[in-house]
């Protein structure tokens, strides 16, 4: 069966133009857009990438931004989990803070030990101060944690 399927797959590859282009991953530091990885274009790539469940090239998700180049905020400096979480979920967290609700925001509240009873107030505060948290388009995750900390 394995051999047969391998042969069958070969036939498909021969039937399609055999070029695969793998774009490099972007690594822009710790700001917005840093941890969203580009999808691959091209039908051949899709067939190959998704049929094989493998981890070649971009198929594997890599967390390349992280907090490596980011300064540590003061109060939560010891809390590596918060910094890592915010830096690795910058975009989805920003979505949720702007909406005042959502799974990414709940998770932040869990990590920051915000008691259940005060969460709604916490979310409203963050939403109301969105522009103070996300001060510019080049805001970094460190800034975000520091700005949230200042509001608490």
């Amino acid at each position: 069966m394995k051999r047969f399927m391998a042969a069958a797959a070969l036939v498909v590859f021969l039937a399609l133009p055999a070029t695969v282009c793998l774009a490099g991953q972007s690594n822009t530091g710790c700001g917005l857009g840093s941890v969203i990885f580009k999808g691959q274009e091209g039908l051949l790539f899709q067939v190959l990438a998704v049929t094989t469940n493998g981890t070649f090239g971009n198929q594997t998700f890599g967390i390349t931004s992280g907090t490596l180049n980011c300064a540590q905020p003061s109060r939560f400096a010891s809390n590596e989990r918060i910094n890592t979480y915010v830096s690795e979920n910058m975009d989805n967290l920003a979505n949720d803070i702007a909406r005042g609700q959502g799974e990414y925001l709940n998770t932040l509240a869990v990590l920051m030990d915000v008691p259940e009873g005060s969460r709604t107030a916490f979310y409203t505060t963050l939403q109301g101060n969105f522009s103070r948290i996300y001060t510019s388009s080049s805001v970094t995750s460190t800034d975000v944690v520091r700005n949230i900390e200042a509001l608490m």
Partner: protein
Amino acid sequence: MRIGPGRGYRCSACCISFFLFYCNLFLPGDLQAHAQDLPYLEEVLGRARIQRLHEDRYWHVLMHYEKNMFGVKSRIDDPKFFLAPDGKTNPASELDATIRAFFAPAEDASTSPVCRFAARYEWISQRLNLDPARLPVAGCTPFRDFMDRLKPESATLVFPMAHLNSPASMYGHTLIIVEAAKASKLLAHSISYSAVTGETFGPAFAVKSMIGLYPGYFSVLPYYAKLQEYSDVDHRDIWEYPLNLSEAEIRRMMLHVHELDSIASDYYFFDENCSFLLFTLLEAARPTVALTEKVHGWVIPLDSIRMIRDQGLVSDAVYRPSRTTKIRHLASCLPENGQDWALELATSDTGDSPSADRTLSLREQRMTLDLASEYLQYLYTKDEVPVETYQGRLLRILQARSRLGTSPEDEIPKIQPPVQPDRGHRSNRVAFGLGYAGDSWFSEFRIRPAYHHLMDSDDGYVEGAHLVFADVILRYHARDDKVMLEGLDLIDICSLSPRDRFFHPVSWKITTGFTRVERGGEERPMVYEVNPGVGLSMKTETLGLLYVMAEAGLLAGGVLEDNYSAGAGGSAGFVRSFHGFCKLHGSVRDLYYGLGDGFNAFEASLQQSFFLGPDRSVSLGIARRKTDSCYHTEATLMGNLFF
């Protein structure tokens, strides 16, 4: 856990980057002897022999032993996994060597066999009632640290569905996530098995992965990282099946994961794949589970969920829509002008916020901005917006959104979860039926091992996606009392992915295999066909999915003049589903073979399927074909069984 070459990912939050190197177990004899409690070792070995512990099923689970003609053989290929030279095939000598290793003095507890093979140690010490005080190493700090970080109290089986516009990904992937109590699901850790390679040439990768030329490893990553990969970048909806494992069972599973850290087992795409390796984890968790022995030939991730369900480990699933699904849903809840606003906000830096549009209610304004930010993020993952533009635009949309307050509960209608994947049809299919062609009757038999046909029920699958491997068609003609191979579709993939205001996918197909062609004579000769196509499709209320495709055709065979025909043409059709009860597909296709053996082939066909439960259907087909100037009509009635 395992960091592959050139992939540059960091196991940040989980940080279980304990690279445990193989310790020097075979110290010179005199060095070992003085520190060992030899009488106790002999006593323990004796007890193990009396209990015939090496025959215990759990020992075979932990060692991944599989029965064969000569006895057993472990599926693990990494020599680091075995302590006895013949451990791969000899459970008794491996057990003996393992127990001896636990008694050997160790320089560093964290690299000692007790720690390195923590699952075996816990089980053996429990079964043989070992006294830790009489062993050189009493416990395993790295495993304790690993558990402290993960605090796993519940486990979930995760199945990402097909990739947008890529039916081949229906094959899918499965992983397990473990969660700490009272934490958010995003902070769970995913345990996933895959092939590891620096190979960047796709075809080489695909073929090598099928014949087991790559090592496979488990990796542990935060679940949010996996969600970004599947949900945000690949646009796959995800199903989460809570596993009813107790904490003790999860602990056993984690011990085994820990033991398999940086141990390679050759990755085979068809059988020893992600799903198969998860079976071994579940068997390690709950010894009464029997999954690996039920695998014959291949295991498809979706089928693996049914097998796990049948073992009583999962039942209901939670649906997690991908970003694409959320975008489609939000758009469907908005009037046209709201959708236009969202598009404009995501694609240009001019224009006002939708609050400027007095015709939109506050609720609609909120949804418009939500749609705009989701869509902008989608465009960014598709590389259609440069990062600086993206950052500025996203911030502008989100600032506007933050001023509109929080949506009350139920303001946005919930996304209705589709049919759970394990409740759809099974992936093997046999079909029996009758047909009439030319001027005679025939009976037909078809069998295919995988996976989903355009005419099969979409319950549990992605609409418009078609992936068929190795479909064999046999016909028995009563007239000349002969069974003939009518066709063999080696690979048949079709993706009808509808275009709309937000998404502009290209629909495509590729079919290759053996087929019969009309070339004038009595016998319809068999040729090898390659038939790719590319086109567009859209969704309509009345006719369902409408599509048009430009197609190319290449036929090869000794019966053709110059041994081949090559040409081009097109096809068009519609696929309409009626409330999961039946499906209708009408199509026309015209191909002109201009090169080699030249001819024209036209076909108009109508197919209909009636679904009688998830695993049974009846299909009717009628086709009118014209080859040059000869007309043929063919009708079939088939009963399909999925198993």
